[in-house]
């Protein structure tokens, strides 16, 4: 009785095309945003820096990968490589040219990652599906090698580990978790809105067309190589910015090892669990994959007390991850976003059964 569409008639195409055509959804989103803005006031700082900030950063990364793999159907295991490029570019600019504003260096990180992504995406015209995943694997190894062997990129720092400088934007120092949280929140929200807009316009349809049936797409006039490269580019831009945020806002000290294959796989798991081809799914998946180890930890301690060995916990985590992936792929291949849709559909007729 709360979630009804009755009485909400659309009288223009513009209204019909809104992101939240059902008023209750719009209010729900509003409440969520309000919560997001006020959460620092009733939550410990630890939660901000250990949970909410990485959640936002990884949501952005998952969003980027979702654009490429979920919407455009180009399977990629190379998410971490593009994050690395974004992070190292932003670091290089902010340390070598400190007069450049920080946000500009983030954007530059994104653009460089986009260029790198388009380069890696060139084989995608001739290679499809699983084989493309192999090229992205190659990108991960290549990138790892570049950032540990070509000294210029990491300024010959010891053991190739770089530390990000203090963040100053427009004279304000972003040194407290609260400030960093707001910065990340704003960046991620704006980029998520941009992604949603793109996916419901021509670009989104072109991506989904080449994902669903590429021969038909070409026959309609969608240029394969150009669209695929644009997909790689936009996706890598998002991953690059996410990488820069990862380094500057969250870890503050990274090396090539922070961007390895298992990181890529984690992000892939996020979009599988959250929902491929869904903006909401990227957020849900990131939340799930990030929070799961914490709950596992709590659960294990509750059930087994303190007798559990931390190393065993890590391996248990691996098993649970693997099991979850298998479970989601079998039970709900469209992920939690689809589950949420089903819940909403049930809500529309609640309390009636059908």
């Amino acid at each position, binding site marked *: 009785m709360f979630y009804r569409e009755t009485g909400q008639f659309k009288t223009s195409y513009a209204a019909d095309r809104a992101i939240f055509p059902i008023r209750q959804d719009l209010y729900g989103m509003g409440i969520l945003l309000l919560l997001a803005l006020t959460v620092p006031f009733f939550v410990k700082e630890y939660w901000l820096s250990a949970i909410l900030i990485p959640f936002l950063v990884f949501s952005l990364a998952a969003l980027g990968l979702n654009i490429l793999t979920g919407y455009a159907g180009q399977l990629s295991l190379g998410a971490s490589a593009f994050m690395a490029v974004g992070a190292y570019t932003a670091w290089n600019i902010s340390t070598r040219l400190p007069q450049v504003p920080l946000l500009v260096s983030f954007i530059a990180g994104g653009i460089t990652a986009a260029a790198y992504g388009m380069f890696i995406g060139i084989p995608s015209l001739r290679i499809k599906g699983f084989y493309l995943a192999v090229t992205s694997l190659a990108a991960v190894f290549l990138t790892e090698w570049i950032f540990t062997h070509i000294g210029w990129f990491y300024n010959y720092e010891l053991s190739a580990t770089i530390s990000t400088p203090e963040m100053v934007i427009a004279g304000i120092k972003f040194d407290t978790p609260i400030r960093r949280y707001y910065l990340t929140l704003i960046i991620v929200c704006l980029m998520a809105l941009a992604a949603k807009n793109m996916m419901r*316009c*021509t670009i989104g349809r072109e991506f*989904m067309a080449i*994902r669903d049936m590429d021969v038909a797409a070409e026959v309609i006039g*969608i240029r394969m190589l150009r669209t695929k490269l644009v997909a790689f580019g936009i996706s890598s831009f998002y991953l690059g910015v996410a990488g820069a945020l990862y380094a500057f806002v969250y870890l503050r000290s990274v090396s090539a090892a922070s961007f390895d294959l298992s990181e890529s796989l984690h992000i892939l798991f996020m979009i599988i669990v959250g929902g491929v081809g869904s903006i909401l799914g990227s957020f849900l998946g990131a939340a799930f994959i990030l929070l799961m180890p914490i709950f596992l930890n709590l659960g294990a301690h509750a059930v087994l007390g303190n007798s559990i060995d931390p190393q065993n916990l890590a391996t248990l985590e691996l098993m649970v991850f693997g099991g979850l992936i298998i479970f989601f792929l079998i039970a709900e291949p469209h992920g939690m976003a689809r589950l949420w849709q089903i819940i909403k559909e049930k809500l529309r007729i609640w309390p009636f059964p059908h």
Partner: protein
Amino acid sequence: MNTAIKYNETVFQGLSSPIDVYARTRSQKIGAPILQVKNVSLSFGGVAALEDVSFNVKEHELLAIIGPNGAGKSSMLNVINGVYHPQKGQITFFGETRHKMNAHHSAEQGIARTFQNIALFPGMTVIDNIMTGRNLKMKANFLEQALYIGRAKKEEIYHRQKVEEILDFLHIQPIRKTPVGRLPYGLQKRVELGRALAAEPRLLLLDEPMAGMNMEEKEDMCRFILDVNDELGTTIILIEHDMGVVMDISDRVVVLNYGMKIAIGTPKAVCEDKDVIEAYLGVNP
């Protein structure tokens, strides 16, 4: 109520006055050849799909391609469309001659088609599927789309209106938001036709648009195809197995057998052609 469509402006509009209805007889409207297929040969690693096929297609006509299974009919459409590249021969479309067509170039030139096995995008709704047909007409770049301002917003609404006109034309308004994968076969074929029409093509290639349909659905589809040909004046090449349909609606018929053209002419003439009867019914001993 008849819907009059002005071909020059290519705007779908509902008009109330019967005076505005175009009433041309079929033979009056057929014009000069717009497509010439010359000596096209296509083979797949030793298996010849088409051998030295030549024919032309005149503007505004409805040409049917018939032939037994494996005769090369779909391959012929695929060659015209740029999906397959022939080893020999050339295609001339509106004066431009090419040895091989390119898929997206042919789309830019105004050739649209439907597929035998339905090539819709199952993950998208009916509206989105038909909107993809308008793809070439959308000019906004990705930044404008990301911010949803200016050209992007205007185009989305303008083309949505055009898509609605097509939904109207094909009587599929109620299913506009349904993901295409969930629709029954007959409706999917109609949506595919809608997507092809959305491009406002100069030449429409239909590959067995009535396959797997019952009598009623076939009549509906026939009516739509005839409407497109009569009211929009679109040139149509149609592959079809149902002889009744072919005889009723086509202006000329091309018969293929084992990749070779064995007859071309009016439906009546082709029906009585010796070679055609031999190919379809066998030789009378």
